[in-house]
């Protein structure tokens, strides 16, 4: 099966899952409303978006220098920096650090980058126990599923489904589907893991070059616990996450939390600059940062597509997408779903692997409208569509170009071009279509599965205009 067929199978499954679609409808409506509540003044919102866009865009302009400065500062602070070109390299590096520290158990804070590298699986295969500590991630870890959203990984599950998972994996705890009780259960179960884990692994929201500081955003406290209680902390992040100055952080933090979950700020904002100092009594004695490329530097070569790298992973585009709400995240079949997924994954993985995702978009623009850093998502998706069917040589580093080009479709567009660039031919066509309108079939393929077949008018507007005496020049 090719990527298009596989995608259609997943879409089919998703559309037939009524419970899933109800869960998503409810979740997305809520999170959209909460975001809107945080931005009552549109002028202020637009100004904040401009600021956030500027900060992120300029970080990308200076990315190589900023990464070097970040590395230099972190190193001076005592944090060890590693560079990984690929997912495999990142996993190898992290495994190496854990092995060197004789770490057998890892407690994880949420990290989408670690989903990219499939770190958990890699470590588990090598005998290292990995426990996800974010409640949403823990739930999907029990369910053995990937996240369906980049901020709310278990958004596809309702509380009965969660209760069932807890009952199955923690049979000694009495069944409950009460959210507070389920939360307390999770607190107790995961507490001992924090206390006893040899190492903590986390992502990074912003890496500040000016001071060599890793910033993490969270509500639960698991991020702080994972990065403070164990003796070893390994952070992994994409190379595009670096920002220049500390003063860049407040506007990004504000628009991130408001866009992502509709909160003015998250419970905790954690800024790590050093490992435990000689006089300090807690905190990890060793802190490492793994900088992952995994296709990002290749994306940056394209002047238009590099806007994708501004992303601060808020998920607002996903929340507002009218297609995502019908499918849920798993249908996309990639680490990143929704609009950012459609823009990023074909670039990361190749158009031949993920280009088909570009068809799951109506170009409605809801995503671009809410993106806090003003990534022109519809424009990028449209560009990727063009690259997917174009085999001609260009300088863009996209891989898999032209892999979705079908001779039959290309012919149709060539015919369409001929028809629409020859006015007389066009008018002849509309003459025929209007006079023969009675022959319009009642069934028109996929269109008439859900709608009646449209019929041409009895006269084209060209003809009516002439009849009614409108001049033509």
């Amino acid at each position, binding site marked *: 099966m090719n990527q298009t067929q596989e995608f259609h199978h997943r*879409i089919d499954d998703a559309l037939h899952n009524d419970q899933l679609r109800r869960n998503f409808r409810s979740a997305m409506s809520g999170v959209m409303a909460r975001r809107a509540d945080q931005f009552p003044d549109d002028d202020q919102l637009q100004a904040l978006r401009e600021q956030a866009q500027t900060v992120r865009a300029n970080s990308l302009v200076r990315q190589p220098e900023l990464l070097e400065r970040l590395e230099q500062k972190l190193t001076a602070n005592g944090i060890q920096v590693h560079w990984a070109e690929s997912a495999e390299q990142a996993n190898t590096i992290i495994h190496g650090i854990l092995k060197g520290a004789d770490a057998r158990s890892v407690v994880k804070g949420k990290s989408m980058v670690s989903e990219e590298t499939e770190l958990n699986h890699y470590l588990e295969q090598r005998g290292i126990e990995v426990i996800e500590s974010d409640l949403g991630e823990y739930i999907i870890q029990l369910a053995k599923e990937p996240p369906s959203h980049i901020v709310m990984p278990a958004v596809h599950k309702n509380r009965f489904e969660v209760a069932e998972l807890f009952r199955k994996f923690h049979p000694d705890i009495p069944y409950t589907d009460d959210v507070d009780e389920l939360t307390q259960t999770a607190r107790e179960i995961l507490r001992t893991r924090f206390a006893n884990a040899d190492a903590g692994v986390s992502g990074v929201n912003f890496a500040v070059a000016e001071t060599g500081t890793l910033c993490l955003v969270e509500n639960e406290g698991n991020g702080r616990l994972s990065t403070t209680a164990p003796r070893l902390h390994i952070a992994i992040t994409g190379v595009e996450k670096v920002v220049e100055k500390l003063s860049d952080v407040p506007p990004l933090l504000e628009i991130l939390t408001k866009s992502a979950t509709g909160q003015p700020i998250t419970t905790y904002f954690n800024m790590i600059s050093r490992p435990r100092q000689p006089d300090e009594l807690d905190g990890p004695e060793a802190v490492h940062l793994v900088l992952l490329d995994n296709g990002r530097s290749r994306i940056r070569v394209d002047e238009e597509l590099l806007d994708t790298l501004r992303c601060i992973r808020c998920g607002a585009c996903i929340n507002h997408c*009218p297609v995502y709400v019908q499918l849920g995240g798993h249908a996309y079949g990639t680490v990143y779903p929704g609009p950012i997924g459609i823009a990023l994954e074909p670039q990361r993985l190749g158009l031949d692997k993920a280009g088909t995702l*570009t068809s799951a978009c109506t170009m409605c623009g809801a995503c671009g409208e809410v993106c806090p850093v003003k990534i022109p998502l519809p424009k990028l998706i449209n560009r990727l569509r063009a690259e997917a069917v*174009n085999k001609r040589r260009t300088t863009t580093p996209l891989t898999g170009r032209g892999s979705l080009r079908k001779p039959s479709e290309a012919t149709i567009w060539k015919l*369409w071009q001929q028809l*629409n660039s020859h006015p007389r031919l066009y008018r002849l066509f509309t003459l025929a279509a209007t006079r023969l309108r009675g022959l319009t079939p009642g069934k028109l393929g996929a269109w*008439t599965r859900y709608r009646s077949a449209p019929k041409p*008018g009895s006269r*084209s507007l060209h003809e009516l205009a002439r009849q009614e005496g409108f001049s*033509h020049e």
Partner: protein
Amino acid sequence: MPAPEKVYFFATCLIDLMYPRAGLAGMQLIKRAGVDVIFPQDQTCCGQPAFNSGYREEALAVARAQLACFKCDIPVVVPSGSCAGMIKHHWPELFEGEADEQQALDVAGRTYELTEFLVDVLDVRLSDLGTPTRIAIHTSCSARREMGVADRIQSLLAQLDKVEVLTQDREAECCGFGGTFAVKQADIAGAMVKDKTDALRATGAERVISQDCGCLMNIGGAFEHQGDGPATQHVAEFLLERTS
């Protein structure tokens, strides 16, 4: 800007063939306001279907063929948010670096969606001669987000004192047409139009009015297929009907 003496009218291929009466109504509304309407017979299509499918060369060839039709420095009025959006916001991208880029930018710079033109340039005054009715407005995503003209159709309809406008749930959510999307991802589109028609039907509106016939073809076609639902109509036809 003050009202021009004359304007071009760009049919859009969809209206030309499938909804010509809507196009004619648009032209008549402008003419009634004292402005001459020129309908170049050589016009065909703005190129959007190919552009959104990734076939940019073909889209460019067709878009280019329109330039000669709209040479004079007068407004180009388009009875569709999506086609107006294509010309105004995507032709610059499509023609970038081309020899006729400046011509295209020139046309794009004087392109208006119909309701935008009626409100911003002509400031039309409407008197409602119809009987009381309840309607819902569906604004296309292009009209809303690309052209920013959701408020223009609202303000025109607000002038009709016997027309009550009802608001459907999730008003700003896409109806699932998306041009070729409705065929390429037919089942997702089917799910989306089902949600949209449910929301519209629930208002109890007698008619759904829109600036875009693509959406109407989708929504109206779905109502017909479901066997139950309000009628659908382009805003130009509705306005002409109510004020004649």
